[in-house]
């Protein structure tokens, strides 16, 4: 099944979803239920006939009572109690509930103990988890685990850092229970790269599209991911907030800010109390006050909320407070990557380079693929005037995001500072060919050429720059740069004797206050050159035709009038 060739049968989908919701809610897999239900809600318009609805069969023969009491304790988060009552059960559903309750109990206790400041739990000590893992392992090799238990086994393996094994187990889990979104999700997080997705044997199921797209997005293959999501979106899932937010994330990653913002807006219109991914949204906006107000009322103890508020303070240039909120986010979830990076940015603003370095390093320790942290480290060292030292960091960032012109430009600037012009030129070139998000590569390239006295190349780059600037909708953001470029070009053409071109550029220079004077001076010298040239022509041209040359002179003088006319104004 080719993932790019998406075919959806909405009715089957609906059937699967309803069935999945039932099964997962029976087992207490609340996040999966949430995802499935969201998806189901998006399929509101599909109305299956009653006979098409899935039939629920009771599969807890003789253990109904145990299961029900355990499930009620489970819902109340009394996990140990829950586990106790289904300890002896052999049916798959109570069995899963038993194992899952034990796992959650371990995790809950771990979390509770986090607050013990005197004796924080040792992350490497996982005795209880290991015991549970051994129990599952025995069943696993006896092939006694169903899809749900396999998923549980997988997350425990992942917790114990046994990633390759966990990958295999997750794949088995989704083979058995394709509807189990949480298993797909975890699989997407640990699958190393694109090739692995294709090389592994995955079930042919509609959910696979979601998985592939999701994983692409995780791995920053934004375009492929967006393609799938857009197709899904257009095939009857346009109400799915999940897909919308994923599309928004994709746009965000591709720096298509307007699209992303619009998408977030429409999500919030449908689902105003949704907090997921709002931290990304807050990175995009310039006015955060309303959003911050809204999210703090929804739930103030959510990482997303803290990040939004942190970003808000950051926009208000109240950096210490921003740091405070990022810290709070990190307290809620120490593995929350972007908070570390954002905190690093805040420290940079506060000129506390040491703290910034630390924050970025934390981010890298959590995920070495976080290009923003590498880039931030590079910037920090560049500010500390260590261009050679920061090269390493920029290179890392560039490796992780090879198609982002910003990294390449940063690298180029560092090279330029180190007088490695050849490398710098290469970088700027590359940045230009990558699309040049910030539009500075060309001007840098041109300036560098100018510095190297390669006027031809410099002029070509400046020309290209001017053309692009003029094409832009929002005109002349970089006013000074633009007019400097014009001035340079005017001078250049003047030197080469291409007076018409020189004239055009010099004339444009007059539009801006700063370059007005130079523009005037240029026009004067162009005019002077014209006068010089004319007699020279006269000498060359046959002297016998004296009349014509006189006529020529007249023409020149009339030209001069036009030239100097703005001068008079």
């Amino acid at each position, binding site marked *: 099944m080719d993932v790019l060739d998406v075919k959806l049968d909405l009715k089957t989908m609906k059937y699967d979803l309803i069935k999945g919701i039932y099964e997962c809610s029976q087992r207490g897999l609340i996040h999966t239920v949430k995802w499935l239900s969201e998806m189901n809600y998006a399929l509101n318009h599909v109305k299956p006939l009653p006979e098409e609805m899935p039939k629920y069969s009771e599969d807890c023969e003789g253990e109904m009572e145990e299961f029900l009491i355990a499930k009620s304790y489970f819902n109340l988060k009394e996990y140990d109690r829950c586990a106790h009552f289904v300890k002896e059960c052999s049916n798959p559903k109570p069995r899963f509930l038993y194992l899952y309750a034990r796992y959650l109990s371990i995790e809950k206790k771990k979390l509770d103990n986090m607050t013990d400041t005197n004796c924080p739990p040792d992350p490497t000590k996982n005795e209880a988890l290991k015991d549970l893992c051994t129990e599952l392992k025995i069943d696993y090799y006896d092939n006694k685990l169903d899809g749900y238990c396999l998923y549980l086994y997988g997350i425990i393996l992942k917790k114990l850092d046994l990633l390759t094994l966990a990958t295999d187990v997750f794949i088995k889990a989704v083979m058995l229970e394709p509807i189990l979104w949480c298993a797909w999700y975890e699989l997407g997080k640990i699958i190393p790269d694109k090739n692995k997705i294709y090389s592994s044997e995955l079930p042919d199921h509609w959910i696979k599209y979601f998985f592939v797209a999701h994983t692409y997005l995780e791995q920053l293959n934004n375009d492929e991911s967006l393609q799938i999501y857009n197709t899904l979106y257009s095939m009857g899932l346009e109400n799915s907030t999940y897909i919308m937010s994923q599309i928004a994330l994709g746009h965000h990653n591709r720096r298509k800010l307007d699209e992303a913002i619009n998408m977030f807006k429409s999500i919030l219109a449908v689902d105003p109390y949704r907090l997921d991914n709002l931290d990304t949204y807050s990175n995009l906006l310039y006015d955060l006050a309303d959003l911050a107000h809204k999210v703090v009322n929804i739930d103030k103890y959510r990482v997303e909320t803290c990040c939004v508020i942190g970003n808000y303070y950051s926009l208000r240039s109240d950096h210490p407070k921003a740091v*405070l909120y990022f810290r709070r986010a990190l307290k809620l979830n120490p593995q929350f990557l972007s908070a570390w990076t954002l905190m690093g940015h805040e420290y940079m603003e506060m000129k506390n380079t040491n703290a910034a370095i630390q924050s970025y390093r934390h981010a890298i320790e959590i995920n070495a693929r976080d290009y923003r942290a590498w880039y931030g480290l590079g910037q920090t060292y560049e500010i500390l005037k*260590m261009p050679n030292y920061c090269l390493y960091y920029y290179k890392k960032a560039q490796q992780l995001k090879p198609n982002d012109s910003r990294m390449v430009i940063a690298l180029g600037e560092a090279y330029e500072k180190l007088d490695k012009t050849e490398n710098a030129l290469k970088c700027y070139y590359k940045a230009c060919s990558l699309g040049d998000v910030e539009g500075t590569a060309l001007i840098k390239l041109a300036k560098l050429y100018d510095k190297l006295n390669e006027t031809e190349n410099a002029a070509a780059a400046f020309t290209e720059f001017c053309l692009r600037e003029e094409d832009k909708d929002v005109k002349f953001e970089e006013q000074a740069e633009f007019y400097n470029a014009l001035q340079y070009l005017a001078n250049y053409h003047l030197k080469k004797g291409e007076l018409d071109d020189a004239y055009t550029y010099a004339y444009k220079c007059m539009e801006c206050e700063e370059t007005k004077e130079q523009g005037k001076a240029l026009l004067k010298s162009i005019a002077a050159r014209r006068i010089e040239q004319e007699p020279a022509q006269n000498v060359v041209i046959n002297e016998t035709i004296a009349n014509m040359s006189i006529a020529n002179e007249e023409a020149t003088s009339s030209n001069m009038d036009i030239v100097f006319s703005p001068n008079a104004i």
Partner: protein
Amino acid sequence: MTSAKEVTASSKKPITEMVTPYKLTVAILIRNYSQYREDDEFRNMEDEALRCRYRRDFSTLVLRLLQSPDLPLLELRNLLTSKHYTLPETLINSFDQTLASLDECGIGHLLDAAESLNKFMVPNDNANESKSFLTSTTSIIAKTSIVGYYLRRFIIHFDKLTFSEVAGIYEAFQRYYNEWRKSSEFLKTEKPHPNDWCSNWEQWSKRQAELFIATQAALLENKESSALSPPELQKRISSILKSNPDLAGAHFLSYLNYLRVDEFCAAMDSLLHCFDRNVDPDLKCFNDEKSKRHRFAALNLAILHYHFGHIEEALASLKESIKISQEANDNVCLQHALSWLCRLTTINEDKLIIHCILKSSELNLTYTTSLGLQTFGQYCCLHSGRTYAIFETLAKSDMINCQHNYNDLVSNNYSMKSSLWQLYGKTEMSSLWSQLLLYLNLNSSSSNKPFYGEGFCLAISNVANHLLIQGEYNLVNAVLGFAKLKFPYAPQSHVWMLCENLFVFTRSLYQEKWAEAESAAQKIAVVDKREGCLRLAEIYFYKQDYVEADRCVDALLDQYENDKAYKFNDRYYYVRAKILKAEIQFASSYPDGIPSGIITILNNCLIEAQGCQLDYQAALIHLHIANVMLLLGMTGQALRILDRSLIQVLGHGGCYDRARAKLLYAKCLVADSHKLDDNERRQVVFNAAKLLDGVREDFQKVEAYSRMKDVLYLQAQLYNSVNMRAERNRCALGYRLLDEEHATKNAYTLVKYL
């Protein structure tokens, strides 16, 4: 700015130490010991020696227990009963009992036990401390002793625990205890190595980790062979980092570890990680103080690049370090950078070094001063400075090293002197200094800690080289084996690699095994390009492949004469290359003719050699001149020249050179005897033939069989000419026998070669 304050406060984690079952167990052990000491059994002990032994052994054991990472109870118990420590039986029993009762009686007992620790430390101020110690009435543990600190820290940390935490620790203890109970039933025989850093334990407290890092780093510096092997060490480091992610030192150790195996990417990663982590974000000090780490980070990056031979990158990084140090007025960092600059650049090297020495001594950076002096000595030597001045410079460095006990520099200095003497052709002196250096490390009575660094390796190799030229091949092998054992990793390993290949080369050259010698020479070229090139030329020369030999030598000479930037100031190689060139010229044209300018060339060489006091090379040149003279028929002249140089060669040359010199001398004597009358001549020839016996023995020692045959042939001829048939036949027989075993490959050595 309340918020800012809050930020700093919250980011500063209180340095807490985990209360682990191991710590609890050790505390209990100490408590039980204290109880035991107050016991009547101990006080009334008859055997005073045993009592002292108990006390001493327990103290050393406790020190070890406090410093090592957490041990499983099994290992701890094994230590208690091991032969290294003699501990009273009663103590071990009571210890076992306490643990067992702790396991059984529940959490209340644990709290009681923790409380009872308090009793053993009564407050004692300085006045009665000594008294109480002497009388040992109540307090056995002084508050300020190491054990006292440990207990007090333990008590405080334990006191802070909430009930749930106490419960957690109790359960952890039960697991810890039962693990031992289970395992002790099966594994009773296994004894841990007493000095081993616990096998693989995951829990490292910060102190334990720091001690481990410091120890391993010191070992890497001083005695690499005793440090853990690279993979093993890396395993420990990652386990340390798991429990102490904030420990920047661990990253540095991992950087050092990667350098041992020349792993560039990982080394770079670790180094930068170390410096990123090393900054204290709460540091609110002046700007220049703040960026200090960055300056040293850049400097260290330069060192890293230098290690991998990336000179340009190293220079760029160094420049950066210098730039920011200058901005911050950091003279100390600047000095360090300067001494590295001396190493990396050849422009104005002398001025840089002098400046470095002066400035460093001004700033009281004695280490860099001394290092600068040594570098200057080296520089002078390479630029043919005056010998006495060089030794004076080194003596100054010696003085500083002595004052500050810089073991590494002391050994550097010794090895430097050794190599200087070697350069100046006094091999005996060179060998002496090397042996002195080796002796320095043997001498356990001196306060100097032994230092097994680069100098030591050089000294071993020098000794090996000296043995090599004396023809003691078996001993060379033994010495090299020792070096390999001591210095398994780069960069020190290059030293013995060079030496080893030189050994193979020399031996195969003497035995005329060209292929082996050539491959050895290629290997030498990997470590030392110039030496390899020379050796290759030598092998081609002996193979009579004069064209190739000439090419090699010319390549070297070209580099020296034309390429100014190339750091080939070393006259030693130049002179040797020139000599070889002259030899090639001579050998390639003789016997058809003698190249006209050969004497001039040799004389030029001689001037060059004498100009930089290369006495031994000068003596060799003299031999060559004498050889040419002899072949030109100017025998008297040849003898006179030999008179001048023979002592030097006999005194300092190796077996092979000595034999060659004596052979030449014998040839000259015989040739010169044509002036004498028959009787006298007979006497001279006879003496010369006798003299050749010694020559033959020398050649035999270095296994130069073809040269032996030359000598035997000459002897036979000489005996023949004086009509001593028996001797002649004996020599001829010897020749015949040798020839069967070792066919001659170069038939001209006797005539053309020295």
